[in-house]
């Protein structure tokens, strides 16, 4: 005798069959003990699963996680601040370098500019610029600026790395 397949019975439980198919299954279940038993077992499993409980996590999972999140947020903020600072230094250095190049170029051409009457007005403003640029970005001062900026950069990098180390240590403790 051919019995109902598990697949068919599962579909019957999940109400996935057409009305006509349901009627046929009803009839078979009434007449076949084996199918009825199989159906009852599957139905029991389905009902048991509906009452199934989830695993419980330790009570301090949430507090541990939130502490980890808080520390990570602080660390991210510090990193962001550091990278903005680094960006500012890079911008300053770039400006300083372009200033020097500009100064050198203008200084070279200033003599020529004076000779051309049309550029006389320009030569006045450029000479003013070059004097100031010259004072601030002269080669000896530029190296001083570079040294101090690098010093600030390395000091803040040291503090950032220390902070990251500390946060990692704290996160490990939490975990």
């Amino acid at each position: 005798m051919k019995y109902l397949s598990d697949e068919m019975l599962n579909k019957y439980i999940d109400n996935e069959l057409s009305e006509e198919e349901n009627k046929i299954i009803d009839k078979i279940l009434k007449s076949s003990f084996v199918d009825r038993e199989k159906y009852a077992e599957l139905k029991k499993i389905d009902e048991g699963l509906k009452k199934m409980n989830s695993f419980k996590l330790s009570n301090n999972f949430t507090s541990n996680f939130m502490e980890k999140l808080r520390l990570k947020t602080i660390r991210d903020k510090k990193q962001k601040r550091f990278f903005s600072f680094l960006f500012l230094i890079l911008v300053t250095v770039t400006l300083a370098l372009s200033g020097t190049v500009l100064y050198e170029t203008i200084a070279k051409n200033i003599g020529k500019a004076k000779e051309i009457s049309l550029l006389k007005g320009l030569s006045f403003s450029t000479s003013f610029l070059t004097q100031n640029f010259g004072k601030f970005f002269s080669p000896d001062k530029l190296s001083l600026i570079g040294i101090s900026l690098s010093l600030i950069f390395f000091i803040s990098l040291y503090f950032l790395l220390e902070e990251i180390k500390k946060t990692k240590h704290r996160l490990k403790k939490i975990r």
Partner: protein
Amino acid sequence: MKILSDIEIIESVKNGNQSDYTLLVNRYKDKAFSLVLSIIKNEMEAEEILQDCFMKAYNSLKKFRGESKFSTWFYRIVYNASLTRIKNKKRNIEIGMSSIDDFINLTADENINKNDLNELSKSLTEIVGKLPENYSTVINLFYLEEMNCDEISKVMDISLNNVKVMLHRARTALRKIIFENNYAEELL
């Protein structure tokens, strides 16, 4: 006291109330833990993965536009993270119809070991956890998270039909395990 919806909590977190994220963590931690555990089968590792998933979800909250339910979106993160861990451990997991047939004779093959079952306190949850990853994931999402087959197909990124087939076969596998080993009285 009014129970906040997931969307309301998310909006609040997006507005800078980080502590409100606790509500979401508390709401989903146990069910998500069951899901990870059904795939990873190791409590310590599952807890670690879940922490990473909550962190990832927090960092991606800005990208969450509410097009799907938060639960579907979050369980997808959890499911993918668990699968990635499995893959990293070089264990083979195959999703889809091609793999289903390998799992049919669960009581007969090494997937479910009778000794394992005897060692368990034999709760239904634990027996489900002993099923192959695909089966236990579908069972967990369907019965614990009360997701419909369509939502499950989105989480697992498989077809609706595959979800249904997996669900049916998982139940059939459980029937075999429970009734052939006479656990029905204890468990059901």
